């Protein structure tokens, strides 16, 4: 076979690159100098498309973009040019404009395999379920489309279906035995299964001795499987083979940052940035690291708390207390002993927190666990009442413990399910709410089989499926714990730790086929939700009537009809719930005891509106029910900890009840908030310290109160008393 013929044969898989096919074939073999020369020659070609490909190959993206613009202007009806331009834009972090070009190509030729593949890649980039269908359509249009086959393999592996992933990758290798990307998928499947993929590594490196992507692909899959530490090792191997992979270097930096190794992270990210890799994740991560000066670290043997300066003094006591409580409970329950501190980072800016989740689905997430590091929204990151940050903290710390027990090897559905279930074990008021969207999903039988449940988290096929999957996973764990006991959950966890897949682990621990578990679980779930499912339409109608009556001030009607509507769907505690309408109507009618009872029910059902919890606390206090008032104030505190009033009221009530140490804590936090009435806050703390017998501290704070407000009579009286 002559060299020219060999090159031609090799170039065939790159045919869609038109004039650059030969150059890409050289690059594919790792013949970088020859490939660069080849691309350089293209830059002086007469054809704009060839020049575009040349500049692209030389990583001169701006010039490539300009030449593609000319190439498409020269031949606007040529779909191939549009597709290649789209691929450039997709590679350079612009999926939206890339998708427009692929669409334009499809308007010219509806079955253009490259355009369909491009659309599939854009969808896959956003973890959209339709990526699978688009890739299949690309294969129908061109059964020899290797990239579409590899994409299907990658998506199957992302969904946790290693078997299907292997089958698709092998198909791709059947199409072209040098398909390096297919080998990367096969190697990744081996790494996920804790097998050394020597065969694929050897075979790939024989073709391309510096094929670093083999390792970086594996690393990406390990990240998806929450194995960040293992991923870092593979990223490093990729860069040892090919230090020019600046995108991989950026990913290494981001994952080092996730693990709390900020200095190493900064080095890698800065280098990637300097090499010209300036995509959003790199820039955002560097910006986040630059913002370190705004954070403080509070460390002891068990915890490393990273808190924003402006709220550290407020949040630290609660974060520490709850983290210690959760870790103690979970370590005992899961029989895990952590040998080092857990890192918890609270971000008041959701975008800072989101930087740590880039590249992952579910940017609406509240918290993410990276082995021993938890990053989450601070309570100030969202509108008060929109989430329960302590519940989220417990959820993430459950991940820390569970993943420590199985060395980060368990499917997403089980890890999330345990955490959701444990939230509700810690408090029945916490955990995933039964939203109308979930009820509809159950009614329409949209729940996924357990063996495919991971897909609901990674690649949702309808809006809201991620939330539905969380709920389903939590309920599944609840069902298994109820039917077979918690010990069985631990055994299942260990089966996953031993690298069993979901079907196998279910068979071994429950003695059931996964399909049988699905059937029994669904029957139980539907039974437990029967009243809600049957009454859902009536509830909706009832709520409409109730809301209208409340708006028109027909309070008696609300009071008369409200309880029946509320009881059709008592889990509904969102804004404008029956509880809220009823409490308001009772108050309008002057029946405070009934309003209080309603709000108590609301709180027990997990209601989190700070204004309603405040109202409950005031009503309890007015009724002389101090313990209940303290309970309501604590609920309010945990959804709105940066509110001055809650600390002031809780501190006062605790002090009245003789719980002086807790009162001191509340007043300290109140002072840390920089209250409008600093004098009153100092005075309150002085009183609490006085009650606790801490005279020196009491004097210090009464003086501070009077320094601010010399005429403050109650503080003056305390001063006289302290100086007698």
């Amino acid at each position, binding site marked *: 076979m002559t060299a020219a013929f060999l090159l031609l044969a090799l170039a065939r898989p790159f045919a869609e690159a038109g004039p650059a096919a030969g150059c890409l074939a050289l690059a594919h073999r790792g013949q970088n100098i020859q490939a660069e020369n080849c691309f350089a020659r293209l830059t002086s070609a007469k054809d704009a498309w060839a020049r575009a490909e040349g500049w692209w190959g030389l990583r001169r993206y701006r010039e490539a973009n300009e030449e593609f613009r000319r190439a498409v202007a020269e031949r606007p009806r040529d779909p191939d040019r549009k597709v290649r331009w789209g691929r450039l834009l997709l590679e350079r972090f612009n999926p939206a404009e890339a998708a427009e070009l692929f669409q334009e190509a499809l308007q010219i030729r509806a079955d253009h395999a490259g355009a369909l593949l491009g659309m599939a890649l854009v969808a896959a980039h956003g973890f959209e379920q339709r990526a699978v269908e688009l890739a299949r359509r690309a294969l129908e249009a061109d059964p020899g489309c290797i990239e579409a086959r590899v994409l299907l393999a990658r998506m199957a592996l992302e969904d946790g279906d290693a078997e299907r992933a292997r089958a698709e990758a092998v198909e791709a290798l059947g199409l072209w035995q040098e398909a390096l990307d297919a080998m990367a998928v096969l190697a990744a499947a081996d790494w996920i299964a804790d097998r050394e993929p020597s065969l694929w590594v050897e075979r790939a490196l024989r073709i391309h001795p510096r094929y670093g992507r083999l390792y970086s692909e594996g690393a990406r899959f390990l990240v998806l499987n929450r194995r960040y530490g293992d991923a870092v090792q593979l990223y490093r191997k990729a860069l040892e083979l090919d230090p020019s992979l600046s995108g991989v270097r950026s990913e290494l930096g981001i994952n080092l940052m996730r693990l709390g190794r900020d200095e190493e992270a900064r080095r890698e990210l800065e280098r990637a940035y300097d090499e010209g890799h300036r995509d959003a994740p790199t820039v955002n991560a560097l910006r986040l690291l630059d913002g370190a000066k705004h954070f403080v670290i509070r460390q002891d043997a068990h915890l490393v708390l990273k808190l924003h300066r402006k709220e550290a003094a407020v949040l630290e006591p609660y974060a520490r207390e709850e983290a210690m409580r959760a870790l103690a409970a979970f370590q005992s329950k899961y029989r895990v002993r952590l040998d080092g501190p857990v890192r918890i980072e609270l971000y008041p800016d959701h975008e800072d927190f989101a930087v740590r989740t880039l590249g992952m689905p579910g940017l609406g997430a509240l918290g993410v666990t990276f082995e021993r590091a938890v990053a989450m929204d601070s309570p100030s990151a969202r*509108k008060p009442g929109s989430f329960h940050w302590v519940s989220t903290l417990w959820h993430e710390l459950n991940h820390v413990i569970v993943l420590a027990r199985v060395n980060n090897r368990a499917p997403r559905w089980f890890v999330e399910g345990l955490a959701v279930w444990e939230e509700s074990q810690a408090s029945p008021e916490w955990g995933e709410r039964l939203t109308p969207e979930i009820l509809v999903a159950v009614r329409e039988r949209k729940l996924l089989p357990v063996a495919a449940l991971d897909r609901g988290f990674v690649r949702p096929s309808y809006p809201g499926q991620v939330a539905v999957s969380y709920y389903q996973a939590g309920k599944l764990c609840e069902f298994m714990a109820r039917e077979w006991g918690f010990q069985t959950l631990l055994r299942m966890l260990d089966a996953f730790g031993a690298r069993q897949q979901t079907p196998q682990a279910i068979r071994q621990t429950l003695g059931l086929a996964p399909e049988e578990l699905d059937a029994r679980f669904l029957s139980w779930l539907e039974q437990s939700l029967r009243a809600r499912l049957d009454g859902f339409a009536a509830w909706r109608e009832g709520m409409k009537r109730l809301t209208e009556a409340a708006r028109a001030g027909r309070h008696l009607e609300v009071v008369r009809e409200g309880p029946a509507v509320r009881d059709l769907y008592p889990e509904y505690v969102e804004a404008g719930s029956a509880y809220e309408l009823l409490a308001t109507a009772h108050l309008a009618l002057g029946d405070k005891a009934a309003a209080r009872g309603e709000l108590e029910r609301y709180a027990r059902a997990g209601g989190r509106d700070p204004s309603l919890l405040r109202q409950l606390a005031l009503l309890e206090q007015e009724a002389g029910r101090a313990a209940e008032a303290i309970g309501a104030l604590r609920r309010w505190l945990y959804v709105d900890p940066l509110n001055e009033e809650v600390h002031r009221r809780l501190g006062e009530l605790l002090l009245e009840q003789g719980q002086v140490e807790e009162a001191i804590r509340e007043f300290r936090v109140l002072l840390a908030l920089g209250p409008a009435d600093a004098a009153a806050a100092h005075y309150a703390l002085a009183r609490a310290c006085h009650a606790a017998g801490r005279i020196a501290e009491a004097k210090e704070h009464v003086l501070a109160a009077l320094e601010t407000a*010399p*005429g403050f009579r109650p*503080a003056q009286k305390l001063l006289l008393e302290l100086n007698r």
Partner: protein
Amino acid sequence: MRTLVRLGAALLAAWPMGAATYWVLLAGLGGEPEYEQRFAAWVREAEKIGRASADAHVSVLSGREATAVAIRSLLGELSRRIRPEDSFVLLLVGHGSFDGQQYKFNIPGPDLSGDDLAALLAAITATRQLVVNTTSASGASLEPLRKPGRIVITATKSGMEKNATVFARYWIEALRDAAADADKNDALTALEAFRYASQKTARFYESQKRLATEHPLLEDTGQGAGVRSPDPAGGSGRLAAAFVLLRSAQAQAAARDPARRALLARKEALEQEIDLLKYRKAAMDGAEYRKRLTALLVELARVNEELEK
């Protein structure tokens, strides 16, 4: 907060026997029922607080009643009644607008511009005046309304902040929340109320995770552009620190009792000494400062004890 020595004395001096405070409360058009109700409720609340104060005369025009003719008539009538030694407070609640040239207070019929309001207020002879414009775009009214001897407070920093505001809510809250009286001297000054309402407004936007669309300003030099954080030591807020909006009933009674005026004078003197001491704090030894502060505070506490008897 007590920041300057001379302000302490000003409080007593600023309370001449027989002087009255005139409150004019105006609620403009809401446009939507929700706003109509909200504006009317805020003004009702302010009216209630004003009427509870013994020396205050309160006038209210709200919603449909608040026409330009009615406002002109009311202010015209008051201009004949108000004496130079009286205090005058104007509160504007509602929507305002700014067309790039002129601020307008939105009321039924023709609106009143910033210049119209300034002309009406020019006839008021009270030497101590406070205008609190809580409407949207109220920042644009600051320039026409400011003049020496008058404190102007606006909910927004310019006419370009056009969204409905919440500043009024917190201004009125300041009038009834004892916490707003930061120095606890039983007298709520315009500066204290402004600081309270500004802080609460800022926290409202922070906690709701919303971009702040109002940034309150205070101007009391008669020539400035208004400041967000007035500091009497720096020149802004001096007038506002001496403008008492409300006093507690006990303070009012004490001031009217000639037998207690000597004690009140001693109290004021001690407060001045404390202010002076605080002023010198940075240059003093910490222990010495603390010792002297404690002594003065203890004496002040005893004077207050006497006053309470």
